[in-house]
C-alpha cells in the first residue's frame, strides 16, 4: 500500500491568492493512499524542504507529491530533497498549480477545484512510480575535430593541452585552412602565416594530437561519450612514413601548369604537389585526375606513362598503387569546424537557391577577381610575390574597384545573410593596395560599413582617411570589359548620381558559404543545419557552440560567417565544453528511457523504424546450448532519448517508458 505525502505550496501569495491551499491539502489528505497532506508558505525554502524530508522519515513515505510551481522550475529541488531523506528521487513529482492554475484563473472556486484535480492526478501517477536510478554511460575520453583550419587547430590544441587526446581530420593535404592563404589580417595587419604557421606545427607535433590529413569522415556511429568514427584516408600515392619532404618529385613532374588551389587559381602547381611551402605535413600528394600516369591508366592504357616522380624519389616513397584506407577511431566528443568557401558568381550554381551575376558577366570578365585571389596577389608567398598585378597582362593596376556584398544581403541572388567579414577585409585590401601601389586609387562600392568589433571601425576610418580609399555608397549595376579597362556602371545613393567609371581591376567581396557537402556531413552526425548548410547551434544565445546532438559541438565559419577572432573564441569554447565533458569517466543521464518486455515482443520492429536515434537493436535470445531461439527488440539505454514514440507504435504493447509508463498515465487519466 502506498504511503504518499502531499505538500501544497502557497508560493507566498502567488498560489494562495487564487487557490485555497488549505482546502487542497485537506481534500488530498482524503485520497486513498495519502497519509500526510500539508500546506506551507514557501515549499522550496529550506524549512519547506526540511518539512518534506522530515515527513518522509516520520511517515515512512513511499511517494512525494509537491503541488507548487512548474516542474521545470523546482522538480530538481524537490527530488534532491527526497533523495536527501533516503527516498528514491524519482518517487517525487510535482503538480503544477501555479503557472497552470493560480496565475491564469480568477475564480477561486474554479482554481481550487482545478488544483485538487491536478494534485489528485499526480498522486495517482506517483503511486505507480518505480524507483529509478540515473543511467551511467562510459566515456571515451578523447575528441575528434573535423576540419584543420584555424578553428579546428585551436580546438585541437586546447583540448590536447587540457590533457585529452584529439583526432584531427583535414580533407586537404595540409592543415591551415583559409587562414594560411591570407596575406595580412585585420585590424592589426599581422602577417597571417606568421601567426598561423607556429600553431600548425604545434598541432602536428603535439603528442596528444593524431593528425589525419587528406582524409574525410566516412561515417559516425554511437552517441555522446561513445562515438565510433570511420575515417577515409584518401590515397596520397606517397608513403607518409618514408617521405622526407625534399621536393625532388615536384621538380621533375612534367605537368606543372595546373591552377593552384592554394593560390586561388592565380598560380600553378605540379601534379604531385605540396599545396604550399609551409604545408603541414610537408608531404606531397598526387592529384590523380591530372597526373599523366593515372590519366593513362584510367583510359585503360597498359603502357607505363611517366613515373618520373617515383624515379626521382630517393626514398622510394612514391606508391602509385596506394589505395584509400578506412580507419576507425573511438571518441567521446566531436567538434565540427569545417569552415567556409566563397560564393561563385558563375551561371551554374550548386544550389537552386542561388543565382549568379549575369550583370557582371558570370565571372568571365578578365581581371575581375574575388577577395581570396586579391589575398594571394597581396601575399608575399603568392604568385606575384606580393606585387599587385593584373592577372590578364601582369600590369600594375592604377585603379582598383572593390565591390562589397556580392551575393550577401541579396535575396534575389539567394543569400539573405551578411557575410560579416567583407567590410573589414575590403578595408584591409584598400590599405594593402595603397601601401604597395602608392599612386593607385582604390574605390569601394558598399551598402553599409559594418565594422563592429574591437579596433574595427578605427581600421575602416584609417583606410578612408589615411590611405585615401574612396567609399561610394551604392551598387554596381553592370560591369564589362572595354578594351584595356573594366567599365563600371553604378549609382551613388548618397548624391543620387549615376556613376560610370573605368577600373584596371575589380575585386568582388563574394559571400561566405558553408563548405560543399555540409548536408551530408550534418546527416552523418545527426545535427541540424539551415537551408544554406550552416550548422545550427543548440541555442542562439545560451548554447552557441553545442548542437542539438549531445556530444557534437561546432566552431568557426561552418556555423555562420565568422572572422578569425570569432572562430578562435568558438573553438576555445568548444574545447572548454569538451574538457568538461571528458573530465567524467561516466556520464549520468535521466533514466527516462524505453525498455522492452522480451516475453511479449513479436520482433515486428515497428519501434526500430520510428526511432529517430537508432536506439532499437536486435537481440538474440539463445538457449543454454547457444541455439538461437528468437530475436527480440532491445533498447540501447545510452542512445535512447526517451521520447516514447516507440511505445505508442508497438502493436503488442511490449515497450515501456520509465517515468511515463502506460500504468502511470492511465492512472492519472483515471483520476481525471
Amino acid at each position: 500500500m502506498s504511503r504518499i505525502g502531499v505538500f501544497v505550496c502557497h508560493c507566498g501569495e502567488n498560489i494562495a491568492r487564487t487557490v485555497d491551499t488549505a482546502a487542497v491539502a485537506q481534500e488530498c489528505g482524503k485520497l486513498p493512499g495519502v497519509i500526510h497532506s500539508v500546506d506551507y508558505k514557501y515549499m522550496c525554502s529550506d524549512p519547506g524542504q526540511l518539512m518534506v524530508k522530515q515527513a518522509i522519515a516520520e511517515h515512512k513515505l513511499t511517494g512525494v507529491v509537491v503541488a507548487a510551481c512548474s516542474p521545470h522550475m523546482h522538480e530538481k529541488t524537490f527530488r534532491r530533497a527526497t533523495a536527501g531523506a533516503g527516498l528514491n528521487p524519482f518517487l517525487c513529482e510535482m503538480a503544477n498549480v501555479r503557472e497552470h492554475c493560480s496565475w491564469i484563473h480568477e475564480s477561486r472556486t474554479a482554481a481550487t477545484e482545478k488544483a485538487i484535480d491536478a494534485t489528485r492526478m499526480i498522486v495517482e501517477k506517483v503511486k505507480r512510480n518505480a524507483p529509478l536510478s540515473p543511467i551511467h554511460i562510459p566515456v571515451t575520453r578523447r575528441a575528434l575535430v573535423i576540419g584543420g583550419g584555424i578553428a579546428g587547430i585551436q580546438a585541437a590544441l586546447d583540448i590536447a593541452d587540457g590533457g585529452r587526446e584529439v583526432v584531427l581530420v583535414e580533407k586537404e593535404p595540409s592543415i591551415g585552412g583559409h587562414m594560411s592563404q591570407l596575406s595580412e589580417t585585420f585590424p592589426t595587419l599581422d602577417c597571417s602565416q606568421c601567426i598561423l604557421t607556429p600553431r600548425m606545427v604545434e598541432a602536428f607535433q603535439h603528442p596528444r594530437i593524431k593528425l589525419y590529413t587528406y582524409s574525410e569522415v566516412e561515417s559516425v556511429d554511437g552517441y555522446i561519450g561513445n562515438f565510433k568514427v570511420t575515417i577515409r584516408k584518401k590515397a596520397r600515392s606517397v608513403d607518409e612514413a618514408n617521405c622526407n619532404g625534399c621536393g625532388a618529385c615536384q621538380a621533375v613532374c612534367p605537368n606543372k601548369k595546373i591552377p593552384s588551389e592554394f593560390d586561388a587559381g592565380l598560380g600553378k602547381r605540379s601534379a604531385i604537389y605540396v599545396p604550399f611551402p609551409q604545408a603541414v605535413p610537408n608531404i606531397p600528394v598526387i592529384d590523380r585526375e591530372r597526373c599523366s600516369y593515372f590519366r593513362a591508366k584510367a583510359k585503360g592504357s597498359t603502357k607505363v606513362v611517366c613515373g618520373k616522380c617515383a624515379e626521382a624519389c630517393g626514398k622510394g616513397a612514391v606508391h602509385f598503387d596506394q589505395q584509400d584506407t578506412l580507419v576507425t577511431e573511438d571518441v567521446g566528443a566531436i567538434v565540427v569546424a569545417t569552415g567556409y568557401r566563397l560564393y561563385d558568381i558563375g551561371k551554374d550554381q550548386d544550389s537552386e537557391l542561388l543565382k549568379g551575376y549575369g550583370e557582371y558577366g558570370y565571372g568571365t570578365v578578365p581581371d575581375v577577381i574575388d577577395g581570396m585571389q586579391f589575398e594571394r596577389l597581396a601575399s608575399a608567398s603568392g604568385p606575384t610575390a606580393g606585387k599587385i598585378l593584373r592577372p590578364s597582362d601582369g600590369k600594375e593596376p592604377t585603379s582598383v574597384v572593390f565591390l562589397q556584398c556580392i551575393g550577401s544581403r541579396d535575396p534575389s541572388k539567394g543569400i539573405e545573410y551578411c557575410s560579416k567579414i567583407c567590410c573589414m577585409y575590403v578595408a584591409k585590401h584598400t590599405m594593402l593596395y595603397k601601401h604597395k601601389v602608392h599612386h593607385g586609387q582604390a574605390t569601394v562600392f558598399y551598402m553599409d560599413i559594418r565594422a563592429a568589433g574591437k579596433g574595427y571601425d578605427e581600421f575602416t576610418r584609417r583606410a578612408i582617411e589615411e590611405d585615401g580609399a574612396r567609399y561610394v555608397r551604392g551598387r554596381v549595376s553592370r560591369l564589362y570589359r572595354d578594351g584595356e579597362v573594366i567599365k563600371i556602371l553604378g549609382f551613388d545613393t548618397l548624391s543620387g548620381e549615376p556613376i560610370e567609371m573605368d577600373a584596371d581591376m575589380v575585386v568582388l567581396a563574394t559571400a561566405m558559404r558553408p563548405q560543399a557537402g555540409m548536408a551530408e556531413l550534418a546527416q552523418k552526425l545527426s545535427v541540424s543545419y539551415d537551408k544554406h548548410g550552416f550548422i545550427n547551434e543548440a541555442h542562439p544565445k545560451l548554447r552557441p557552440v553545442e548542437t542539438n546532438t549531445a556530444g557534437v559541438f561546432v566552431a568557426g565559419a561552418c556555423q555562420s560567417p565568422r572572422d578569425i577572432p570569432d572562430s578562435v573564441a568558438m573553438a576555445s569554447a568548444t574545447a572548454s565544453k569538451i574538457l568538461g565533458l571528458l573530465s567524467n569517466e561516466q556520464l549520468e543521464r535521466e533514466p527516462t528511457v524505453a525498455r522492452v518486455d522480451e516475453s511479449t515482443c513479436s520482433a515486428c520492429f515497428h519501434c526500430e523504424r520510428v526511432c529517430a536515434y537508432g536506439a532499437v537493436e536486435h537481440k538474440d535470445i539463445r538457449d543454454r546450448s547457444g541455439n538461437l531461439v528468437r530475436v527480440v527488440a532491445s533498447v540501447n539505454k545510452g542512445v535512447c532519448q526517451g521520447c516514447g514514440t516507440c511505445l505508442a507504435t508497438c502493436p503488442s504493447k511490449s515497450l515501456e517508458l520509465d517515468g511515463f509508463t502506460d500504468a502511470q498515465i492511465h492512472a492519472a487519466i483515471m483520476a481525471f
Partner: protein
Amino acid sequence: MSTATAIENKSPASAGRFEPRIAAFVCNWCTYTGADLAGTSRVQMMPNVRMVRLPCTGRIDTAFIIKAFERGADGVIVSGCHPGDCHYSEGNYHARRRFAMFKELMNFMGIDERRVTFSWVSASEGRKWGDVVDETIERVRALGPFDDYKTLLEETP
C-alpha cells in the same frame, strides 16, 4: 466517483451553463513550457482543462484519448511542438500521422471529431495556448456533454 463530484461542485458563477471537462495531453518541451509561459505572462483562460504531461506527442497513445472520454472528458486537446521543431527530431511527425488515422476511428466510434483539438503550440506561444484552450472549451460547450460513455459506465456493474 471523482468525476461526478467534480461536476457537481462547479462554481456558482457558472451554474446553469454547461462546463465541459477537457483533458489535455501535451509534450514536455513545447506545449507544457508554452503553458508555463502563459502562466508567467498571466494569460487568463477558462479553468476547464486538466493536463497530462508527456515527453513527446509521439508518446501519446490514442488509447489515452479514448480513456479520457471514458472517464468523463467532454473534449480532449493534444498539443506538441510545431512540425520540424520536435525536441526528439520527429516524434511529432509520427504523432501527426497517428492522429490523422485516429480521427477516422473516432468517426467510426461515433465520437464527434470536433471534440478533439490537435494543435501545435511552441514554448514561446503562451498566448496561443490560451486561445487553444478557450476555443476548445467554447466548441465543446456548444457540442454539449459527451454522455455516451457515462451512461454506459453507469449501466455497467
